[in-house]
C-alpha cells in the first residue's frame, strides 16, 4: 500500500474516538517515509468536545452501530496542528506511530476530507458519494459549522476546518463542574468525618502509649512528649482514616476517579467486614479458643519457661559458655517478667470472647475487615509487650557490654578515646586504674557469652513479632488501596483506561487510509500494579534496610516498625 505524498498541508480530522473521556491531551505523531528514510515528529493537541447530535439525525446515530462504540455521549476528537508543520517528501509511509490517549480511527467519511496530512496524502482527489454522506453526517453533528465556537478558540477555523463542539459532555468529570452547595448527606458525612478525626487526634502522654520510647528519649527529644492516639494504635489510626474517607466523600470538588475509588474501597472493605463480623459474632468462642491454642500457645507461660530453661541448662546451647551465676540471675529475671505478664493477661483472658464479639459488631457496623486487621495488629503488640520489654532490656545490656569491652580493651593497651579529636590517644593511667581496667575487661569478656545467649533468643522472638506486625500493617494498607473502582470500570468497559494509540495503514477501496488502534490497561495489569505495592509497603513498614538490620542486631540497636499511618489522598485522579 502506498500513499501519494504531496506538499499540501491540511488538518487531519478524526471522528468516532471510542470512549475516551479526557478533556484534552497532547498526541505525538511520528511519521516515517520509507523511501527518503526521513522521520518527522509532530506534537498535536487534541481537544475533545461533546457530541450532541441534532434531533433530525438521532435515528441515524443509532444506525452507526458498532463503528465506534456507544451512541450519545461518545466523543470526537479533533487534531489541531501545531506549528511548525512537518512535511515529508517522497516515498511511502512505512510506519506511523501515535502516542496518546485514544483510540483513534478514521471513518471513511473523514478520510474523504483529508487532502493531505503533513507528508501523507490520501485519495480521492475528488469527493465521492461516501465523502458527501460523511460530510453531511459531520454537519449533523455540528462539525461543519463554525457558529458555536469563536475563532479565538480555534485559529484554524478561519481556514475552513472542522469546527469544535460547543457543549460539554454531561458525564464530564466533576472537577470541571462549578462548585455547588453541599447537600445534606455531604454535611452529615463531613461532620462524621471531622468527629472521627478529632477523636483520633487526641493527644496523650507518650509515657502511657510508648513507655519504652519515652524512656529512650534524650533531652532534645523531650520537647514532644505527647503523641496522638492515632500514632500509637492501628485501630485509632484506622478510625482517623475512616474520617478522612467520609470527608472526601462529602467534598464537593472531588474528582470522579478519586470519589469512585474511595467509595469502592469502603464498600469492599465493609462487605468483607460483614462476612468476618458475622463469623466473629456467631462463633466468638470457637475462634477465641482456636487463637489461644495456635498463636497464644507460643507465648504461654509454660512454653516461654521451657525456652528460658533451655538457655539456663548446663548443656551450653549453641556452644555458648554460660556463667552460672549471671545465667541464674538473668534467667530468674526473665521468668519473673514472663510470669508477671501472664498473671496480668490471665485476668483478661475470660473477656476474650466478648472482645471478639465487640470487634465483630464494629466490623459489621462499618469498620470493615480493616478494623479486624487493625485490632489484630494492636492485640499482637499488647500480647507481646513482655517480649518487647525483655528485648529492649537485653539489647541495651548487649550494647553496654560491647561499649564496655571496647573501652576497657583500650585501657588494656594504655589508650583512651579522645572525644574532642575523635581518635584514640595514649592514656596516662595509675596502677589502680590499670588494675580496675584489667578486672573489668576480664569480667565483660567472660560474661559476654551469657548475655549474648539471652540477647539472641529475644532478638529472634522480637523479629518474629515485628514480622507478624508488619504483615498485618501491609495487609491493611493493601486493603485500603485496592483498585476496586478501576477493576470494575475495566470489567464493565474495557476501553476505560487508554494507554496508547497505534496508527496503522490499511487499504481501503479508495486507497490508503490511516487506522488508529487504541491500547488499554487491562484487569491483569491493574492487579499486577496493585500487588507490586507490597514491596514499597514492606520497605515502609521496616525502619531499616537489609544492611541496617544486620548492623542493628550486631550492635544491639533498636529494631522497630514505622508508625501505622494509612495512605493519604492525593490530588491525582487515581490512587494507582
Amino acid at each position, binding site marked *: 500500500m502506498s500513499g501519494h505524498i504531496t506538499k499540501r498541508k491540511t488538518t487531519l480530522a478524526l471522528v468516532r474516538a471510542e470512549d475516551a473521556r479526557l478533556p484534552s491531551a497532547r498526541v505525538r505523531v511520528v511519521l516515517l517515509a520509507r523511501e527518503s528514510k526521513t522521520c518527522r515528529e509532530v506534537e498535536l493537541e487534541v481537544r475533545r468536545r461533546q457530541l450532541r447530535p441534532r434531533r433530525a439525525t438521532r435515528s441515524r446515530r443509532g444506525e452507526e452501530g458498532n463503528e465506534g462504540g456507544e451512541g450519545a455521549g461518545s466523543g470526537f476528537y479533533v487534531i489541531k496542528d501545531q506549528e511548525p508543520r512537518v512535511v515529508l517528501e517522497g516515498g511511502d509511509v512505512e510506519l506511523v506511530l501515535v502516542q496518546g490517549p485514544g483510540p483513534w480511527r478514521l471513518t471513511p467519511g473523514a478520510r474523504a476530507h483529508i487532502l493531505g496530512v503533513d507528508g501523507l496524502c490520501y485519495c480521492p482527489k475528488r469527493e465521492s458519494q461516501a465523502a458527501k454522506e460523511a460530510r453531511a453526517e459531520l454537519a449533523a453533528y455540528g462539525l461543519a459549522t463554525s457558529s458555536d465556537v469563536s475563532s479565538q478558540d480555534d485559529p484554524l477555523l478561519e481556514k475552513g476546518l472542522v469546527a469544535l463542539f460547543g457543549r460539554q459532555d454531561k458525564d464530564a468529570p466533576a472537577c470541571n463542574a462549578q462548585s455547588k452547595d453541599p447537600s445534606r448527606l455531604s454535611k452529615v458525612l463531613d461532620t462524621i468525618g471531622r468527629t472521627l478525626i478529632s477523636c483520633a487526634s487526641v493527644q496523650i502522654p507518650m509515657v502511657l502509649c510508648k513507655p519504652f520510647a519515652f524512656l529512650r528519649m534524650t533531652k532534645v527529644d523531650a520537647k514532644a512528649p505527647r503523641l496522638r492516639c492515632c500514632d500509637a494504635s492501628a485501630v485509632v489510626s484506622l478510625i482517623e482514616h475512616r474520617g478522612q474517607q467520609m470527608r472526601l466523600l462529602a467534598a464537593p470538588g472531588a474528582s470522579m476517579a478519586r470519589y469512585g475509588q474511595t467509595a469502592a474501597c469502603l464498600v469492599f472493605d465493609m462487605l468483607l467486614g460483614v462476612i468476618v463480623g458475622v463469623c466473629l459474632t456467631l462463633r466468638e468462642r470457637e475462634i477465641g479458643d482456636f487463637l489461644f491454642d495456635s498463636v497464644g500457645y507460643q507465648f504461654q507461660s509454660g512454653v516461654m519457661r521451657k525456652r528460658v530453661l533451655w538457655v539456663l541448662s548446663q548443656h551450653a546451647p549453641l556452644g555458648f559458655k554460660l556463667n552460672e*551465676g549471671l545465667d541464674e540471675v538473668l534467667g530468674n529475671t526473665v521468668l519473673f517478667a514472663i510470669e508477671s505478664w501472664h498473671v496480668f493477661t490471665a485476668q483478661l483472658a475470660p473477656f476474650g470472647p466478648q472482645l471478639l464479639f465487640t470487634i465483630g459488631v464494629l466490623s459489621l457496623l462499618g469498620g470493615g475487615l480493616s478494623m479486624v486487621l487493625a485490632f489484630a495488629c494492636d492485640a499482637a503488640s499488647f500480647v507481646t509487650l513482655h517480649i518487647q520489654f525483655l528485648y529492649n532490656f537485653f539489647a541495651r545490656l548487649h550494647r553496654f557490654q560491647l561499649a564496655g569491652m571496647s573501652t576497657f580493651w583500650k585501657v588494656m593497651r594504655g589508650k583512651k578515646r579522645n572525644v574532642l579529636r575523635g581518635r584514640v590517644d595514649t592514656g596516662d593511667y595509675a596502677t*589502680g586504674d590499670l*588494675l580496675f581496667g*584489667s578486672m573489668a575487661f*576480664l569480667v565483660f569478656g567472660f560474661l559476654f557469652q551469657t548475655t549474648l545467649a539471652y540477647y539472641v533468643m529475644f532478638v529472634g522472638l522480637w523479629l518474629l513479632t515485628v514480622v507478624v506486625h508488619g504483615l498485618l500493617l501491609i495487609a491493611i494498607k493493601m486493603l485500603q488501596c485496592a483498585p476496586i473502582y478501576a477493576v470494575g470500570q475495566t470489567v464493565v468497559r474495557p476501553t476505560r483506561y487508554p494507554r496508547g494509540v497505534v496508527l496503522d495503514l490499511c487499504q481501503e477501496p479508495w486507497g490508503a487510509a490511516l487506522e488508529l488502534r487504541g491500547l488499554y490497561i487491562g484487569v491483569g495489569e491493574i492487579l499486577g500494579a496493585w500487588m507490586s505495592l507490597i514491596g514499597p509497603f514492606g520497605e515502609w513498614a521496616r525502619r531499616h534496610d537489609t544492611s541496617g538490620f544486620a548492623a542493628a542486631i550486631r550492635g544491639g540497636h533498636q529494631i522497630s516498625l514505622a508508625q501505622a499511618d494509612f495512605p493519604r489522598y492525593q490530588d491525582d485522579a487515581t490512587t494507582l
Partner: protein
Amino acid sequence: MSRSHGTEGEQAASNGDPEEVQYLFREPGRRDDEREDNAVDPRVFLKRMRIENPPARALATLFVDTLVVHRQIALVLLDFLVFLLHKDERVTAKGMFGIELHFFAMFYVLLICVVALVARSRSKDARRVEQGALCMLLLATFSPLLRTLTEAYSSDTVYTLVSLCGVVHLYLYDYQPDVDALRFNSAVSLNAGFLMSLLLASRLETSEAVASFLLCSILLLALVPMGTARASFARHGVIAVLMNVSLFLAVQYGLHLVERSGLAVAYSVVTFMVCVVCPFLLWILQTRKHVVRGPWDVAKVDQVELD
C-alpha cells in the same frame, strides 16, 4: 684494626675491610625541624663513645643488667607458686592476707620514707594510701564474681591463656623504667600480668582465697618492681645480686614444696641462660662488632684519638 668515622649519612660498610670498625653518626641539622633525636655533635662523638660505652659494657655490668630480667621471671613464678599454694590449700587465705598486709604496710612506709628524703608531699601520700584502700575494696567486692568467671571453661584453656599473658608480660616489660615516675611505662605489660593473675584467681575455690591471691599478685607484679625501680640502692650491683639470689632460692623452695620438680629444673636452666650465657654471648658479640651506629649502640670501643 683501622677505624673510620662517617660525616653525613651512613658510610657504606660493605665496601670497607670487614676488620675495620666504622663509627657512624649523623650531623645535626641546621634547623630545628631537621634535628633528630639521635643527632650527635661530631666534635664530641668519639669522646662520648669512649666515655659512655666502655664502663656500661663490661661483662660484670652485663651480668648485673640481666638480673632485672631474672627478677621479673622470678616474680611471675612466685605469683604462680602462691596460686598453687592456695589451690593445694597449703596456706590459708587469712594467713596469707595477714602476711600481705604486713608487706603492704612495709612497702608504704618504705616508700614514704624514701620520698621524704627527696621531697615530702602529704597529698601524694594520702593519695597512695587511698588508691591502695580502693584496690583492696575492689578486690573484696569483685572476688565472688571473679571466682566464677571461668567455671564454664576447661583448665587447659585457662592455663593456655595464663601462659600467653605471662609471656606477653615478660616480653613487653619495661626493664629500664623511668625512675622519676611512680607509674609503669608499659601498661600492656602490667595489664597482661594482672590478667594472668585474674585468670589464675578464677580457678580458686573460695572468695577469700581469690582476694588474698590477687593482693599478693599486686604486691609481686606492681609494687615490688615499682619499689626496686624507685629505690636507688636496689640498683647497686651487690644488692641486686643478693636480691636475685634470694628470689631464686625462694622460687626453688616453693617449687619443691608444691612438688613441681620439672618446673624447677626448667627455671634453673632459664636462669642460667638468662644470667650467664646470654650476657657472655653479648659481650663476645660486642668485641666483634664493626659497625657502631652511635653512642647508644652496644659495642666495645677502643681508645681513639680525636681529630
